[in-house]
């Protein structure tokens, strides 16, 4: 019944628990720390969207990337997914060149660490999933059909 796995290097628990018996943690006993998702390599045409930065600034950044490369990948995780979608659509609206988009979704594994606030508790972690959206926005390359 216990959700706590042995304290290992990755700190991930091994068993699944039925949702009816989910143990809530006492905020006085533990502090929840969300671990950052694993950092993915970011090529120059990758844009990761977050909820804190100004929307206009992120839009400007997308335009800047589009100047140099033909396609741009927009990633949004969890609460930033609607913002990422909004960004992609605004990009299409406001751009001079015609743009197409293609969307995929994925699941990202996140780990939460529970840090004990007092002597009695123990470190443990829980894994949870979150959804992410990846939008590829690309310029249409003109195929010259008139050439003989």
């Amino acid at each position, binding site marked *: 019944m216990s959700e706590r796995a042995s304290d290992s290097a990755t700190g991930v628990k091994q068993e699944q628990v039925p949702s009816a018996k989910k143990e809530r943690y006492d905020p006085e006993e533990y502090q929840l720390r969300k671990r950052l998702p694993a950092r993915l*390599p970011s090529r120059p045409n990758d844009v990761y969207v977050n909820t804190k930065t100004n929307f206009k600034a992120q839009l400007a950044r997308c335009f800047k990337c589009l100047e140099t490369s033909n396609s741009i990948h927009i990633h949004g995780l969890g609460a930033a997914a609607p913002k990422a979608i909004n960004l992609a659509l605004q990009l299409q609206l406001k751009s001079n060149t015609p743009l197409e988009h293609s969307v995929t979704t994925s699941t990202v594994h996140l780990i939460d660490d529970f840090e*004990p606030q007092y002597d009695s508790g123990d470190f443990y972690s829980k894994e949870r999933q979150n959804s992410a959206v990846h939008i590829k926005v690309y310029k249409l390359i003109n195929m010259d059909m008139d050439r003989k």
Partner: protein
Amino acid sequence: MTDNKYKMVGNVPSDISVVRFATVRAQEIVALTKMIENPQTTKLIFQKLPCHMRRRAMSHNPNRMPRLLREAHKSQMAKSGPALKPKRPRRKYRRRPSRLLEEYKKRSSKMSWLETHLWHAKRFHMTAKWGYRLPEKSCARGHRFCHRSVAEHCLLVDISYLCCIEIQGPQNAIIHELAPLCDPKTGPTFGASSFLNGTREGRVTIFQKNSFSRGPIGLVTFLWRHGETPDMRTLWIWCHPAFYEQFLVELNSSYGSNSDSLIEQIKIKITLNKGKLNRFRLRGPLAHSVISNLLDKEIRKVFIASQSPGFVAGVDVRDPRMILPQSRVKEHTSVPSQCETVITSRSRLWDASVRDQIAQVRTSFPDYVVNGRRSQLLVPGSELPLQPEEIPIPLLIVNASHESSDFVPGCDVIFPAGWATAFWLALIYSGGHAGGLKDVESMNFEYRICSDLCLEVDSNAGKTAAAEQKVKLMEDYFRKPPKTRTNFIKLATPFPFSIDWNRLLIDWGYQVEQGFTVLRDKKLLNTLSLNKQNLLSEFTFSYPHLVAVTIRLKHGSPRDFSMICIPKMDDKFNSPINEPIHQDPGAKERKILRQQHSSQLKSLAKKRKESRSSDDKVKDFCSDAVIAIHKEKMRSLWLPPSCNLKTSYVRPVIGFVTKGDFGLSEGKGIGRGYIVIRSVPQISASLVLVRNPGTSLYMWAEIALC
């Protein structure tokens, strides 16, 4: 003709007696041979050489003389006094690293050097602190570059000046003795079950024995050894050198106060590992990738996957000099992959004998031998295959734990003494950016991490540091001419150089004979931050506590020693509020004093002149004492007088900012400071006013309990 020629020889006898001839001539012969053998010439040997054999250099170099005459020449040169002192070697030769180390050994009694000192000294501005010469800030890289290193790459700091204390003994005895030193309400302590098996590093604030109401000694980190039985355990405590002495005194008193029989039963042993271990700190998203370059290929994959904060990993690595890349590489993130194998926390580093053995290897297998072998490799810059003299070096890699709401990934590397330069170069070449004390301070300011390297404001060490800073700032202030000094009296700044917390607490109605502390109780802090002050009893409010806060401004940024004030009820948000200029009663007095002083100096000078001309040396009209007295009086007239902080200004002061600047991580002005606990209920809507020292404008800011 011929007769004349032979006339002279007429008296010559026809035969001579040889013996008679010789006896008479013997004296002449003896005299002549004497003269030949003992020349009493005034000429030196080299002057009697024929012209074509004389050389210019033979005046100082006897090797230019013919061999047979060399000895005699040398003795003649010696007679003319000692030779010139040997030529001082050129600057480049004098500054070679081996000679510098010899120099250092001569002067190392007061100041200790870190092992990486020579590398840092060429690239950093150094300071002397806590008995060590430490790098302060980089000569070439600016403040923003170092901030970017923490935010995006990897910052590397040498923190080997942290002192390690090893305690060995039965587990219960150790915990029992250390319990009075830490307050369980502030968080997990030495005996917390999560740290006992040695897979995680813990941090705890230590106080003087059983006196949690007075200030703490400081923040220390500790590590138990993994894989031991409860009868015999080892505990490492890492503490800052500023309060190392104080901590040792506390430890000795707690262990020494037992009766002798108990000590024999319990057998607790304390060893000071001060110079025996080195520690580097890496902070930044790429920290794990940089470290993984030191590891073997198989361990590398496992390591990248294991990034649990606070986790301790013990690994064995090859000698880093073998795998040093040929030039610096920029580090990239590597994608962590799923891995089945697990890194253990067990390490051979805890064994003192292993550490000594490894320190031996460093001297027996020196750098130039390694470099010689590497130069003979076919492909330049490739890894050296396993050498017979190599032994694997045990490392402890401690992942960074959560210290505040912001988390900066990173790790600490601990390894035996003697290997700092080798590991440092390997990490720098793998993409780490070196940092100094200023970068540590900036990390603490921006993200509130690395708090074990910074001193608490209510501890003795912190107060000493603040006093030193005050002296320095005052000297800088008084060095300016009076016309360009900011007049802190007129601009109503009570504490321009350091903050007097006692004064603040007295003005808010507390008694501070016992001293004050910063509130660290987690439960109370939680209730305060959730705005449930009515749940707290009056008792907590009656105790002189300070609460740590963060203030954020939209426009502008606070400075050090800024005042935090509460707005009045009817103050509208974002309305400009100004402090009127106060009267400076000291101005008149200063003017009179200045005139008096100059006239006094003139009269003393006159008297000195008179006494000189009248040859009456009875009195000494020295003006040094007068100048010293005048200087003290003038300085005290320039400093603002102490006044009631609640009532003297337009808005009541509730606290001060200890460190304020533009926060690069957030993009707005941030101040980290402390306020009086009694003022917390009076803050409405988390809005306060901030006034920078030497200014009159009150800026609106948001306050948050951190």
